[in-house]
């Protein structure tokens, strides 16, 4: 029977806790024994002060007169239960519950140490105690708590053995504060927080990049959670309590290490994203749901009065959807949308600014936030239109414009639509958003990364790893940021950066630092980022399929396709075929002549360089390009200084048909005969022909 002002007896509390945490569990979600003041009020609204009632009930049950053996009498019943290994939930649930309540109250301490835990526990169990009395109670609790820690350990095994009915146990401890670690593991992370942390793990991309170190996690999580993520107040407060960071880091680290890759909603359902697709060509705005791996069909309900069917299409990455609610009505209510069923939850979070980026299947698809330097369409609630105009005038690339919509046929109902929006100037952005409402700034500000990341850069040798870059093209550093500005101390190759980097959501370029070839190490936010700059010499060309222009027959236009270069396939300047090479004649100290098949010799005039060549800032060419006429057979060159005739060069062979020659012609052939007879059989045949002409007179 309850005594004094107490409302519920030990048995009633045992029964109530058993019903909440062990009966009718959804085994697809982890088992968590979470309890705090708010949760207790929600669970037991019939009680005025459930936490005080429960604590008083436990306080009366403990054997305070036995000092640090105060839990011993309860331990007897626990051992009986453990020996039987019964399917019944364990006894002493009220004690375990109060131990969690004490942990959930720790965040009120500036430095949440284990001492703080026992103080909170003592305050719950003996609220009237003070001074030396309180110190003694704390000591007794600390010394005796090993018994309770043992119960938690037993409970973990018992729940784990029944994971198929109860869900995976989340009971863990902490290597330093191992006794109080058990209740803390239940108090800091309520079930919904554990679910929502899957979004953080996805943002960290832990499957690809691994889990950040324990000491870096709370800071990264705290920055990521600086935007509304839906975490509980307890968890958010714990995140802001430095003394709890180590405990929290370990809890989150363990959960991240065991994460199966599924992103869940706070209700533990697998999350689907409800997006809006804009087609400016067809002038439509429709719902769109991106496909998630392993979900081919789904039937979802909207508050029980609408059924939506999703099915994976043969092509593309958006589900075919039937039965979706009207988009205009959803946007009008400004409350977002949630559709549930089949262990899934499709979520649309309405925001004052909806951003859209290009998508291969939908022309424009709504996204969570803007990305700097990428093109967006923005749909803004009309009351923010004027502010948006100012921000875009200041911080967006020129070329954005308001899209004209008629109210009766609006593309996005109830929104002002902006096209060609590219945010590109972080300093201007910071200035432009000053004075705007935080929700508006948050919606406009780039989504912060969950961990420091190297982005952009001239990546090479991607088979060697993810962080190899060409010299001259090192990456940018993207830092986790909050909605305020954050200076981040960092060290590059052991040298601290001065001034510290400014984390704004825009990338910090490393290229201006003029880094040299070789390995580099960046230490920032408790993380180490290694990258390598290659000079380029040692890098092999990547193998690839060549694009070529395949030439068609006659008038068929060339077709671009993959394939080898060949007689009918052109790539760049690699064009098969041949063209006769013109003669390169010396521009100075030579006179040139040509002879045709009749032996007639004509002088070749020296042309000036082309206008283009003259305009180039190049030294004068010692040559000029000569394309002989089709009748020319021999090219003759005379050294202007010595007057010597050089060996005639054959231009193209034509049989000699020498006829009457001018005196100059005779003179030239006489010189040829004199100096170059027997130098070539072809020339000799012309010399013989000339001799016949000369003899004939």
């Amino acid at each position, binding site marked *: 029977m309850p005594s004094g002002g107490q409302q519920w007896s030990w048995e009633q509390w045992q029964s109530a806790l058993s019903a909440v945490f062990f009966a009718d569990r959804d085994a697809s979600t982890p088992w968590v024994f979470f309890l705090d003041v708010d949760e207790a009020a929600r669970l037991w609204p019939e009680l005025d002060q459930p936490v005080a009632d429960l604590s008083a009930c436990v306080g009366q049950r403990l054997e305070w007169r036995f000092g640090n053996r105060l839990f011993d009498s309860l331990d007897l019943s626990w051992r009986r239960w453990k020996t039987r290994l019964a399917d019944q939930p364990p006894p002493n649930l009220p004690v375990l519950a109060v131990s969690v309540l004490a942990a959930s109250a720790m965040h009120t301490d500036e430095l949440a140490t284990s001492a703080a835990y026992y103080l909170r526990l003592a305050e719950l169990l003996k609220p009237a105690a003070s001074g030396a009395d309180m110190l003694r109670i704390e000591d007794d609790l600390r010394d005796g708590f090993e018994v309770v820690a043992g119960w938690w350990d037993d409970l973990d095994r018992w729940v784990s053995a029944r994971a198929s009915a109860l869900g995976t146990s989340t009971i863990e401890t902490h290597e330093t504060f191992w006794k109080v670690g058990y209740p803390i593991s239940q108090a800091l992370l309520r079930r919904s927080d554990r679910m929502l942390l899957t979004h953080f793990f996805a943002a960290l991309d832990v499957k690809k990049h691994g889990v950040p170190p324990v000491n870096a996690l709370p800071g990264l999580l705290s920055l990521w959670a600086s935007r509304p993520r839906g975490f509980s107040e307890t968890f958010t407060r714990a995140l802001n309590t430095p003394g709890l960071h180590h405990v929290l880091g370990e809890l989150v680290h363990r959960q991240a290490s065991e994460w199966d890759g599924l992103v869940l909603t706070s209700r533990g359902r697998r999350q689907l994203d409800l997006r809006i697709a804009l087609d400016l060509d067809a002038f439509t705005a429709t719902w769109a749901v991106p496909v998630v791996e392993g979900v081919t069909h789904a039937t979802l309900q909207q508050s029980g009065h609408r059924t939506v069917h999703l099915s994976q299409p043969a092509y593309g990455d958006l589900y075919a959807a039937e039965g979706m609610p009207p988009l205009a009505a959803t946007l009008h209510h400004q409350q977002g949308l949630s559709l549930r069923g089949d262990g899934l939850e499709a979520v649309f979070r309405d925001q004052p600014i909806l951003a859209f980026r290009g998508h291969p299947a939908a022309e424009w698809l709504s996204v969570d936030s803007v990305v700097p330097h990428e093109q967006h369409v923005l749909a803004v609630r009309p009351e923010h239109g004027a502010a948006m105009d100012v921000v875009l005038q200041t911080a967006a690339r020129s070329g954005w414009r308001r899209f004209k919509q008629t109210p009766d046929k609006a593309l996005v109902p109830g929104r002002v639509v902006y096209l060609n929006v590219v945010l590109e100037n972080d300093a201007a952005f910071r200035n432009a958003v000053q004075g705007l409402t935080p929700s508006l700034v948050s919606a406009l500000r780039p989504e912060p990364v969950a961990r420091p990341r190297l982005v952009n850069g001239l990546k090479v040798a991607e088979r060697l790893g993810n962080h190899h870059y060409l010299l001259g093209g090192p990456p940018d550093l993207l830092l986790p940021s909050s909605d305020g500005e954050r200076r981040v101390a960092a060290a590059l190759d052991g040298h601290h950066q001065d001034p510290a980097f400014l984390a704004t959501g825009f990338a910090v370029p490393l290229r201006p630092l003029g880094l040299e070839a070789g390995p580099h190490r960046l230490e920032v936010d408790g993380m180490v980022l290694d990258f390598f700059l290659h000079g380029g010499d040692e890098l092999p060309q990547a193998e690839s399929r060549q694009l070529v222009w395949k030439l068609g027959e006659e008038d068929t236009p060339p077709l671009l396709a993959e394939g080898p270069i060949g007689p009918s396939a052109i790539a760049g300047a690699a064009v098969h075929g041949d063209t006769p*090479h013109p003669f390169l004649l010396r521009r100075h100290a030579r006179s040139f002549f040509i002879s045709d098949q009749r032996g007639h010799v004509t002088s070749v005039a020296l*042309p000036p360089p082309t*206008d283009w060549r003259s305009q180039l800032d190049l030294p004068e060419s010692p040559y000029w390009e000569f394309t002989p006429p089709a009748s020319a057979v021999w090219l003759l060159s005379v050294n202007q200084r010595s007057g010597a005739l050089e060996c005639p060069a054959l231009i193209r062979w034509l049989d000699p048909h020498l006829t009457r020659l001018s005196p100059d012609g005779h003179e030239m052939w006489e010189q040829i005969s004199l100096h170059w007879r027997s130098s070539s059989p072809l020339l000799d045949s012309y010399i013989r022909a000339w001799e016949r002409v000369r003899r004939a007179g």
Partner: protein
Amino acid sequence: MLGDLLARWLSIQQAGTIGRLRRTHDWLVRTENGTLRPADSGQWLRDMSALGSLELDWDRDRWSATPLVLTRIPHGDGLALLVGCRGESCERKLDGLDLEVHRLPQVSRPSGMPRPTVVLLQYDTVGDLSEAAKALEATYVPCAAEQLAEHLSRPQLGEPAAGPNLRNASLELFDPFTLQWGPPLFRPLPHGAYRYDYAGRKHYLYLRHDGWRQCDMPSAVFTALATVKVRPLRWRADSSGRDTGCLHVDWGAPLPVLQQRCLVLCSGFTPRFSSLAKTGSYDNIPRSIAEAVAASLGQTLEVS
């Protein structure tokens, strides 16, 4: 130089997606606080294609680098052009050549990334060129411009297509007389070349007596130009009397890739744009090549 750096990266990567390359272009320009317009990356890519350094498949979002080619410049008086994206080793081998190597800045643009440096070699004999090509691990092509001129063909309309969405506010009709695009004023739509925006890109269609046809911009424009007597290509002989000169092409008449490349390979330089005359001017174009290009587009070359 930024353009050379990006070209060096392309020589290593060899192929990739156009989207990523455009983002890389923009990123590099931003790292030097350069002026950047949305169209700059696309123009840089088109220039690289005209220079013979890249092949671009816009429909499939793919680019691939082309092989290095050493080729003679027509009327160059012993100048050869090195075509293609040059890697670090190529730059070093160039320094080791016995030939005189000239590195000249490419025609500049008001914004975006500079185009890679033009590399010209002064040679003495054809033998020098083939030897140099071997040393550079490049292909020797006697005269790419002249050889390409033999393979040019007329742009043609594609397969039958559905008509454009008449509610699309970006729908425009090409006026072959003014060479400008503007909203169609009449319904039903008259025959001609049309374009509209979709997914951030321009799309082109041609309407003729048998319905709508798919096409790209050059085939749309030159099919429309074939219906009128407008001459957007004009060749002016230079003062040397060597049958070479400058080809002026009106802004509104964009040349197909191979025609443009054929002209650019005559000098190694992209056209100079005149906002006053609204033309692009290609230098050092032999009349024979200018005529081949005009004929391949169904145009009569205006000569003066």
